[in-house]
């Protein structure tokens, strides 16, 4: 198992309702999440905004500290591991962020952005690995000398993906990585991400609010609603016979091509 998650709970302080004296009340974002993620799975995590999907993802990478429950990564309990102990493991679980404009430091060149994490983990042949990573995401090697603002949205997101895969992680979390892209870049990014996952034997968790994107890529789907898992199923099964009402609601929100449309 890549991940074994048991009864995971996480809350944030609600500063808007903080009394003048005393602690702020807490808002529960994750209310007891349990699931297993076998190695090699491409898991889709879907849900509306505020459903806790990004919080779940960030807790899995231990960017957030859970209140209760446990997270085991490849057999190791990382629930309460401190940052110093985690640092050695961090290479093995990576993340691709939603907005590459924010997640790529604007003052570093593409080459430096990809090489930086590898240098931190003292990997060898960094230059060769940067070139390889750029090749894998389909960017010309000359892009290594560019700044992120000189790239298009799709190219920037490829840099984010290259940075994550260059570390040769076991697990990648992709948090809404195509929601900022236009439809054709979305399709491109999804296609080669699918190929990469297959070629590198990665385990991927793909967070999205869009079921049609999940359907293209994922083998298994987790539907989240208000901090709880309402349905967990294989992709085909979920689309053929959704069990939860909330899943049906999400499915009905996918726009389908209409053969009778008038305006063509």
């Amino acid at each position, binding site marked *: 198992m890549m991940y074994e998650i048991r009864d995971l709970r996480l809350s944030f302080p609600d500063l808007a309702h903080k009394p003048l004296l005393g602690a702020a009340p807490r808002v529960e974002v994750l209310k007891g999440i349990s699931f297993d993620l076998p190695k090699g799975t491409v898991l889709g995590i879907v849900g509306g905004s505020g459903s806790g999907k990004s919080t779940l993802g960030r807790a899995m990478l231990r960017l957030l500290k859970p209140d209760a429950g446990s997270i085991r990564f490849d057999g190791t309990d990382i629930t309460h591991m401190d*940052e110093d102990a*985690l*640092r050695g493991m961090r290479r093995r679980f990576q993340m691709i962020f939603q907005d590459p404009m924010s997640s*790529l430091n604007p003052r570093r060149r593409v080459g430096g952005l990809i090489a930086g994490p590898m240098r931190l983990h003292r990997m060898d042949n960094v230059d060769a690995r940067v070139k390889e990573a750029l090749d894998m995401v389909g960017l010309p090697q000359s892009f290594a000398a560019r*700044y992120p603002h000189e790239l298009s949205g799709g190219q920037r997101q490829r840099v984010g993906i290259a*940075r994550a895969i260059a*570390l040769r992680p076991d697990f990648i979390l992709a948090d809404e990585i195509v929601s900022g892209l236009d439809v054709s870049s979305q399709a491109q990014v999804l296609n080669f991400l699918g190929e990469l996952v297959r070629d590198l034997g990665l385990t991927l968790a793909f967070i999205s609010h869009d079921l049609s994107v999940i359907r293209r890529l994922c083998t298994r789907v987790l539907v989240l609603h208000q901090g709880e898992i309402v349905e967990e199923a294989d992709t085909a099964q979920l689309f053929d016979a959704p069990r939860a009402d909330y899943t049906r609601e999400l499915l009905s929100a996918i726009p389908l091509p209409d053969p009778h449309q008038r305006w063509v």
Partner: protein
Amino acid sequence: MRDARAEVKRPIGLRLWLSGGWIALLALAAIFAPLIAPHDPLAQDLFLGRMPPFWMDGAEPGYWLGTDSLGRDVLSRIIHGAQIAMIVALVAGTITCVIGASLGLMAGYYRGWADRVISRLVDIWMAFPPVLFAILLIAVLGPGLMSIIIAIIVIDWTRFARVIRAEALTQGAMDYVASAQVAGRTRFSTMLAEILPNVLPTVVALLTLEMGIAVIVEAILSFVNLSISTDSPTWGGMIAEGRTSVHQAWWVLVFPLVALFLTVLSFSQLGEGLKDRFDPVLR
């Protein structure tokens, strides 16, 4: 592919040329003051008092910008005054910047109790009237170059702390900070390697502004006679002396004032110009 971007070369703007040129000129004048200055800035000659500048009737050859009421050469005094102005600008400006920007960076990046302590300190500090604060400080420390530098640092570090804290707060919320954590960078190293380069353009702009302000503060303190000893040629001191005889000898007041004005303006323009020229994100 946007290869055309590489072809676009930004010319070094007129602003950068003019401001940089004036500062460079002033720096050279300060370094080589004893060699350049046509006269001893302290030499008095009461027979040559209040001589007008060279283009006016009755000018004394060799005294290009005229003389003051004690017959001291105005040009030589301005050149020697540049020494003190430059030292104050560089030393006080840089130290103020380092102290204020470090505290601001820590407050904005670490937040929590570090932010609470530093921010409250800044709030309290800023409630003191700055010029009065400086005068009080020098009254306690005694006049002298060191006292002026210390006074400027003590008054102005809050400006840096405030602005850089706000900037670091904004940068700290960016995903590249989370991304550095994912990559396994330590908190401290993230602050130096990821946040600092992004607040550096603001720091540089503030630093040059601060250098201009340091020159002004030094002039104000000289004006109220709290700077270096009265004899030493400082621009503020010259302005103070020129004020008393402005109707008979306006040049004693006007020339140091022009030098002061150009210097402060050049420092602030230099900062903006450098930011435009060397910031890869703006380019």
